[in-house]
């Protein structure tokens, strides 16, 4: 009876109950073989219920600014196992709960059990497990438990990703993902082992209790950056990301891109919070990595023809922006400027939330298109705006948000990061000033390229005429798919139009991250004029509406008729003769050819009357195909002798064990 009041006073209980509900959501479906649809609906319902509980718990934690830690009665082999909640964990729980609930509902429409009776129960089960592990990860308060949740998350994501395992492309992407995620986990093993030196347990140290100078801290920072950066998909470590995001079912892509990669950011933020003093070069490294990641991410995105791969590269770009914000905050701590810390970290945390919202919105929108058209190729779509007006409008909302344009949420977080750059440059303190000065135009360029990329996507997919019969037959998805998108779009607009409410949610998380900020006395509202964002955003919306109305009236007054477009004198224009995604982006891809390495196959024109031919172009995943694969192939050749040890003879394997045992015995003797 008093569970609910206890839930209010102790939000952690509410959160944990919610995660358990999410984790168990897929179980009924596994046993309801006869009626998979009921199982799927039940799973979605449980995830939504668990998410609501988690969301309320997280919001209560933030608003009451409380911190609670529980130690489980039974100990693990590695020491006591502690879970807890504080405003920083709670802030990461917000996007987890929102996106998990939206994706679960969307999944019932996108991957209906009636059409996929074999895979849907499995997908629901692993999706629930994934959502639960994502919600539990920020609650872990010791290294071992953190790694356990991290692995559950990685494996549940692997199985959810590999839903279409009959498809070779999906299997390959899943394999790369599995290998890469384990390499990252290995680095985190090193991180937490190093953190343990000095202490006697794997429990997380308190905020700002460790010294950041010295080789030990450097090693911890670098391994954490590698391990978390691999999960987050920072630029040279992103190789798993495009394939995995493209191959997963769309709602799984949405949660991967919206949340899973954010857990890499959470790990990094949490580990950085342990340090009291940080050397300036940590911030500089992160800022530089963020700049590289965001510019190259968006450049690769511009070159893609696959709708979901393109969105995946935008995740790399946005992770870069978040990492830039963290870099600014660390620089601020190194030169002792609380205002810089506040702006950088607030921008980074808010962008985590924002990116989770608009990127899942975009992936769900892309899923709605792919679900109907049956292809991810942008150049095989077209003219969908007329056939799916809701999806088009929602996708456009997400696109405006991801480009960082007002009046949507992407603008607010990028604005905070910009302010951080500017105040860092104005202060003129420390060695990082030139880099901060460079970062502002870099971020501006990223925004510009993102606009270009989404003009390309929106123009090719939703405007013009359908290029194929499949695209022409598309129609609006049902409300199970539309509803979550509408909800996400409303949240994007709310954050974008009313950012004055944000300091109430961001500040507790920031003060948990670095308690010194609370003593500095400066609030986020002092550092950033958020009220103006609302006013200017509202003005912009009104102006756009006004101009829209004027244009509409003019158009209605003008004479109207139907005719063909100008076809350069060609007698038989076809819909294939529209601007394609590749032709639209061609100039920019050529500019970045040094990094993107675009490949095109075109027929050679030899005679006056050329014969028929085909043209194809694509931008490969440069790091994977040009660096890592050749490296591994070379290693494979060199190490073929060692491969003889793995011959498949069971007896000799047992002999290996025996010999090892004998050697160990002889050694210990």
């Amino acid at each position, binding site marked *: 009876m008093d569970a609910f009041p206890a839930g209010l006073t102790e939000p952690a209980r509410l959160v944990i109950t919610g995660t358990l509900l999410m984790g168990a959501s897929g179980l009924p479906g596994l046993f309801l073989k006869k009626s998979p649809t009921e199982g799927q609906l039940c799973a979605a319902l449980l995830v939504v219920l668990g998410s609501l509980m988690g969301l309320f718990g997280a919001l209560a934690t933030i608003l009451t600014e409380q911190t609670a830690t529980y130690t489980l009665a039974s100990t693990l082999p590695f020491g006591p196992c502690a879970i807890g909640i504080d405003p920083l964990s709670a802030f990461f729980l917000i996007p987890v709960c929102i996106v998990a609930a939206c994706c679960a509902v969307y999944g019932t429409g996108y991957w209906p059990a009636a059409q996929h009776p074999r895979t849907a129960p499995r997908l629901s089960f692993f999706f629930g497990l994934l959502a639960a592990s994502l919600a539990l990860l920020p609650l872990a308060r010791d290294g071992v438990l953190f790694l356990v949740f991290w692995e559950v998350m990685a494996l549940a994501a692997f199985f959810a990703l590999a839903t279409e395992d009959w498809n070779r492309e999906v299997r390959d992407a899943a394999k790369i993902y599995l290998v890469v995620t384990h390499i990252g986990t290995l680095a985190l093993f090193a991180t937490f082992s190093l953190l343990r030196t000095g202490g006697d347990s794997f429990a997380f140290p308190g905020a700002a209790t460790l010294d950041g100078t010295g080789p030990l801290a450097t090693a911890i920072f670098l391994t954490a950056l590698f391990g978390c950066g691999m999960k987050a998909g920072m630029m040279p470590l992103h190789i798993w990301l495009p394939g995995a995001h493209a191959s997963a079912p769309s709602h799984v892509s949405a949660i991967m891109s919206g949340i899973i990669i954010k857990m890499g950011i959470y790990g990094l933020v949490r580990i950085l919070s342990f340090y009291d003093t940080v050397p300036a070069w940590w911030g500089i490294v992160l800022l530089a990595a963020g700049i590289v990641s965001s510019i190259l991410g968006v450049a690769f995105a511009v070159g893609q023809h696959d709708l979901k791969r393109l969105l995946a590269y935008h995740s790399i770009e946005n992770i870069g922006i978040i990492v830039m914000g963290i870099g600014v905050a660390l620089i601020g701590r190194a030169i002792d400027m609380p205002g810089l810390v506040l702006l950088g970290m607030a921008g980074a945390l808010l962008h985590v939330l924002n990116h989770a919202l608009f990127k899942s919105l975009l992936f769900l929108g892309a899923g709605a298109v792919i679900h109907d058209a049956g292809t991810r190729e942008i150049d095989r779509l077209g003219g969908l705006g007329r056939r799916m007006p809701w999806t088009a409008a929602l996708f456009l909302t997400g696109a405006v948000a991801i480009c960082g344009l007002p009046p949507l949420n992407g603008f607010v977080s990028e604005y905070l990061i910009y302010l951080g750059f500017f105040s860092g440059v104005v202060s003129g303190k420390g060695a990082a000033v030139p880099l901060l000065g460079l970062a502002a135009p870099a971020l501006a360029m990223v925004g510009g390229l993102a606009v270009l990329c989404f003009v390309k996507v929106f123009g090719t997919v939703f405007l013009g005429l359908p290029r194929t019969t499949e695209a022409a037959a598309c129609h609006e998805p049902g409300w199970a798919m539309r509803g979550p998108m509408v909800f996400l779009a409303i949240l994007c607009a709310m954050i974008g139009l009313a950012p004055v409410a944000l300091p109430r949610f961001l500040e507790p998380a920031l003060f948990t991250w670095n308690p010194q900020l609370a003593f500095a006395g400066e609030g986020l509202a002092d550092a950033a004029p958020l009220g103006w964002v609302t006013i200017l955003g509202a003005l912009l919306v009104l102006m756009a509406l006004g101009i829209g109305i004027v244009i509409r009236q003019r158009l209605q007054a003008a004479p109207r008729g139907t005719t063909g477009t100008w076809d350069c004198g060609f007698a038989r224009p076809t819909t294939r003769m529209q601007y394609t995604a590749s032709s639209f982006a061609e100039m920019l891809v050529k500019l970045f050819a040094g990094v993107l390495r675009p490949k095109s196959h075109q027929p050679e024109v030899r005679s006056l009357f050329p014969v028929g031919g085909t043209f194809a172009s694509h931008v490969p995943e440069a790091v994977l195909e040009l660096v890592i694969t050749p490296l591994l192939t070379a290693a494979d050749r060199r190490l073929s002798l060692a491969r003889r040890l*793995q*011959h*498949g*003879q*069971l*007896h*000799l394997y*047992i*002999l290996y064990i*025996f010999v090892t045992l004998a050697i160990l015995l002889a050694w210990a*003797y």
Partner: protein
Amino acid sequence: MNTVADQLIVLVMLINFAALGTGRLAVAIRAVALQGVILGILPVLIHSFSWHLVAITVGLILAKGILIPSLLTGAITKARITREMEPFIGYVPTLLIGAVLTALAFAFAAKLPLAPAHQGLLFVPAAIATLLTGFLLLVTRRKAISQVIGYLVLENGIFLFGLLLTEAMPVMVEAGALLDLIVGIFVMGIIINQISREFSSIDTSRLTALKE
């Protein structure tokens, strides 16, 4: 320690040689079953009487002497094999290696830093010798069934050692070990069936086809 127990332990070691030297699977299974029964009797001889001990003895004899051998016999009739053909190392050489390993086990046991109460007992070298025999069976035999027999001998060696370590092992530990073993046998049984269905033989060296 009484002489009856010592004689039984010597018998255990002799059975090791029987398992090593025979090519007929039915004989090997019976030998291992006998070894299990002897191991079941041993606790009664060396510890003072208690109902707990009786339960252990009955459980051991049932599991090691009856249940597992009958499972194995069922497996060989189902897979229609009676002999271990072409082992990696012939029977006579394995016997010789087994003899050498047993001798080494005695030498090794003499050097082990044991508690004074346990020094000079026959238990330790017998346990190590049985363990090594199990390993030898595992390494040299080709058929999956022979490997299961190897595991059984290995487990018997571990059990023999465990008899020494504690006055009376907690029931849970024993039950756990036995359960492990039975699950292991079941898994092996399933694997044997699957292998013989897929490759129409239960020769584990054919499994090399599965390597990456």
